[in-house]
């Protein structure tokens, strides 16, 4: 019986501390990043002709729309990857 009570207490402690960590992490993420940036990309072919446009809304504010990573992500979207 005592073992069962200790086990239950330990479980509650672990769960509560786990929740706290998760809450802290989530709170930290929300505080440091906001997702209200829009990146707009013109897609042209090698003759310079515009073939379309891709607009991404909700991009993290600290992302540079012109960075290679962001542009490669857009090419992925364009190619359906």
């Amino acid at each position, binding site marked *: 019986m005592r073992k069962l009570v200790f086990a239950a207490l330990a479980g509650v402690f672990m769960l509560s501390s786990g929740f706290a960590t998760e809450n802290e992490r989530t709170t930290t993420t929300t505080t440091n990043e906001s997702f209200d940036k829009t990146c707009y990309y013109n*897609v042209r072919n090698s003759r310079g*002709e*515009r073939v*379309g446009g891709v607009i991404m809304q909700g991009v993290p504010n600290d992302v540079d*729309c012109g960075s290679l990573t962001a542009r490669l992500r857009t090419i992925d*979207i364009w190619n*359906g990857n």
Partner: protein
Amino acid sequence: MLNKYLVFVIGILIFKTSFSQEKGVLKVEYNELVSYIPQIINQDKGFLLVTDNYSYYRTVFDNTSNLKELDENTIIVAALKDEYFSEILLNRNQDSLTENLFERRAIKKFFSVKEEIPIMDWKLVDDSKRIGKFICKKAELNFRGRSYTAFYTEEIPVSLGPWKFHGLPGLILEVEDSEGFFKWHLKSVYYPYDEKIDLNPVFDRVKKFENISYKNFDSTLIESLKSKFKAIKSRAGNRKLSISTEFDTKEWKEPSNSWRNQTVFSF
């Protein structure tokens, strides 16, 4: 017996060849400069061949690779050389214009697109300039969503020009659109031109490609593009980001027409 048969076959071949070739009237070469953005200028070539009944215009596309870094909001994807094909045949007796083309934007297929020779409502302007040895007069045109300025010469009384242009009282030697995307400049002209012109390969392609009216082609292409851009958007739908896609016809040679004013499509 064998000799008679051989003579007969050769006779038929000579007759067929001479019958299918038309006597030339005019041959013109144009430099076609196409530039949608200042960093890329495509130097295409255009060839106009005119017979008593037909006029034939073919564009030979510049295949220089222009994959270069542009501004940070522009992404460049390859344009395949083989995807560019356009030849235009005007049959003046039947009042028909046929463009054999490869549809590269969405459908990826050869078509033979037919329409009546479109009316081009030119406005003659009191201005002139010399192009080579020819005195040229100025004219202006609004056609299918684009404004053009042309110079034509009455010294060559053939009311034709590059691409689909026609209807002026002389040969068009130079045309430019107001946005500077498309320019046709005379390179050389042979008039009169007495060589035989063989249009059979063109007629063969008309038979081989899918025949479609210009109106049906336009609506089929727009619907195919809509499907393509909706698919791009939906494939990206499982991301955290909100993705929108769009295409427009603003840089097309014919951005709009009498049944379609919409030039921007967003999804």
